[in-house]
């Protein structure tokens, strides 16, 4: 559920700010924001978003190929190549998941791609009945990477038996459909960016609730809070339930890739913030440079360094984790909780301090849970 903070709250915040300035202190003069938002949008689109989608899409092209090879010849070697292509694509996904804007938002790309934990019962039912509609919201958790992870690594108890189980025609058909759908949706989003959406995105360069910067920043923080911080770490660590839920980690069946997936996502989060290009060769305008600009203009505290410093601390905390977050939760959950705490510490900086500095309103609140 999204909602916009009401005007009255904003007014009261402003009032509060005015009051806190006091009579006898020098009132802080807010200098007009002359930062070139459009330049930042162009850099986001050309240096980060579109290259990331291109890489994602090409990783899925490979995945489709490897899947087809496996269907033709279900050898163990071909299964291994298929698995490698799957992990590769899953990692590429981590670099686009946060861009829930434009076509991706419209077709609810993330919901169809990476809702976990996956619903094994629903998957098996879909496979055996062969009657299902993958477009239904109730099938979000029966498709995408989490479902593929189950099919490639969890469909039989022993790894040696997986090839046989997977090679049954109904199962192969389902796997094939899941992979094809990922590719189809990725294609759709990428071609939309390349044909029309880039122009829409960069030309909507104002400052309002519906402007590209405001929307993108909200999507970014929402992703960070819900899908990155909570989904990858908080929920399995039991932050919201009181006790750990080891099965709720990302990719629990392959098991050994959770940390890797986490760090790709974490790097993507930090790169977007700092404006680092997808190829790593350049640095464009970004939230960080925008913050630096505003801090310099208004002579206010250095938020931008605080944010990146806190992420460095969080990364060190996450470094200590096992390759398998599932194992980590089961053996020493304290380290998971500590990682969560360090990630959590940037929420206030991002959601309050940064948004205030950039004069962006939060457009989402936590659903009230009913």
């Amino acid at each position: 559920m999204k909602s916009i903070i009401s005007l009255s709250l904003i007014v009261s915040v402003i009032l509060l700010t005015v009051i806190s300035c006091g009579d006898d202190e020098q009132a802080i003069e807010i200098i007009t924001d002359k930062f070139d938002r459009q330049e930042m949008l162009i850099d986001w689109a050309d240096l980060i978003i579109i290259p990331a989608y291109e890489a994602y899409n090409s990783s899925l092209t490979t995945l489709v190929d490897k899947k087809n090879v496996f269907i033709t010849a279900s050898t163990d070697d071909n299964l291994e190549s298929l698995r490698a292509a799957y992990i590769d694509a899953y990692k590429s996904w981590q670099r686009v998941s946060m861009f829930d804007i434009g076509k991706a938002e419209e077709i609810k790309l993330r919901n169809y791609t990476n809702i976990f934990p996956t619903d094994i019962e629903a998957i098996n039912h879909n496979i055996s009945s062969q009657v299902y509609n993958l477009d239904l919201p109730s099938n979000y958790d029966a498709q995408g990477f989490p479902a593929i992870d189950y099919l490639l690594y969890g469909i039989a108890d022993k790894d040696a038996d997986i090839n046989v189980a997977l090679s049954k025609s109904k199962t192969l058909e389902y796997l094939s459909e899941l992979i094809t759908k990922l590719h189809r949706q990725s294609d759709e989003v990428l071609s939309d960016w390349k044909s029309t959406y880039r122009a829409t995105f960069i030309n909507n360069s104002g400052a309002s609730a519906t402007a590209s910067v405001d929307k993108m920043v909200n999507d970014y923080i929402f992703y960070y809070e819900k899908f990155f911080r909570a989904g990858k770490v908080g929920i399995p660590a039991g932050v919201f339930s009181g006790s750990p839920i080891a099965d709720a980690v990302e990719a629990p069946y392959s098991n050994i890739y959770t940390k890797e997936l986490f760090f790709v996502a974490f790097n993507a989060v930090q790169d977007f913030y700092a404006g680092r290009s997808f190829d790593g060769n350049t640095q464009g305008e970004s939230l960080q440079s925008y913050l630096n600009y505003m801090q310099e203009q208004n002579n206010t505290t250095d938020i931008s360094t605080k944010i990146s410093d806190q992420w460095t601390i969080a990364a060190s905390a996450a470094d200590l984790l096992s390759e398998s977050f599932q194992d980590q939760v089961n053996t020493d959950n304290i380290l998971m909780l500590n990682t969560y705490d360090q990630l959590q510490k940037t929420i206030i900086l991002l959601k309050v301090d940064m948004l205030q500095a950039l004069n962006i309103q939060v457009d989402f609140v936590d659903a009230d849970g009913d």
Partner: protein
Amino acid sequence: MMKRTKFGFLACYCAFLMVSCSNNLDINTNIENPTAYSFERDGVSTVSFSGQSTRIGMATELVEAMLDFDSTESLLLEMYTNETATGGDADPFSNPEYNESTKSVKSKVAASQDFFSSNTTESAIIKAEIQSWVTDQVTEVFSNENVLAEVGVAGQIADGTSVRYVNAQGLEYNQAVAKSLIGALMIDQICNNYLSPAILDAGNNVIGNDSGVVDGNNSYTTMEHKWDEAYGYLFGAATDTSNPLATLGEGVFLNKYLSRVNDDADFEGIASDIFEAFKLGRAAIVSGNYGVRDEQAEIIREQLSVVIAVRAVYYLQQGKRALDNNDYGAAFHDLSEGYGFVYSLRFIRKMESPDSYFTQSEVEEFLTTLTGGNGFWDIKASTLDEMSETIASKFNFTVAQAAE
């Protein structure tokens, strides 16, 4: 905001301050006001509202079962009526105590003394309307479990990563039932039944209470019990019913939404105001001070009315914002909750008046506006704003204050 009641409460609060300096005994009124909702006679608690806790529990099971696609129509109806279609004994609940009970949700829907004892026509319509939503959930929504909802077609729709199941107009019947019961069952029983002198003072209640005559084998007087029954419909699901503010918001009905309104800075303290009024009113009954009792009843009526009205406006506004973002799933969920709270407006009670804030026809018009035609699919932002304004204008709060 609500100057009158605040003032009334302020007076009570001052009284309370004096009380606290004198062993909880108000020197003016002789009322001993405890700090918790806890009253005893000869060392035995006199507080009892098990019937209310039972009905809250039954209603909770009903609304949960409305989202379980294995539920049959007859099971859901039995949960509503606690009897079989032919009037026989039914055991639809998972809690065996509810199955043994002869009470039911339906029998207390729109069943208050003040509003419905001589308006059984409307009472029957309301009872049947809520029942029809229970039935329609199975016939319209369950049957379209695996269909994508669209204009005029029931089915499922995404709200973020959640799935909502809506009818052809976008309404979630389970939400309509849950939120309408807050008004039709809980508010109606509290405000228009148990807090009413018609109930509190019925028969020999006053003489009995004055002379401490207990009700049969129980430890309480009838009047004490009636007041507690009102309290139970609000706080009956709390972990510690003598101190419900400590864990405010438990359960899925009125207590939960009192907590939500209390969390809004514009209405902060409303939960404590209501709790204190319940407690002082009960203490006044023990002291035989019926003037103070009735003043507290008025405070409770007014404040609970505010809770329902604020929540109705809140959800209409949330729905409007989600529609602005083309987020139909989120919008329909909010509007479905809003629909139930608007339905509940029929039961809220004006202070010192025999009337509801809204007449049957006013509420009916709101509801028709919301779900008429294609319903939520093509409702306009301006319509939701107008409705919000109309509701808020009867109270001392603004749409913006409620919408946060």
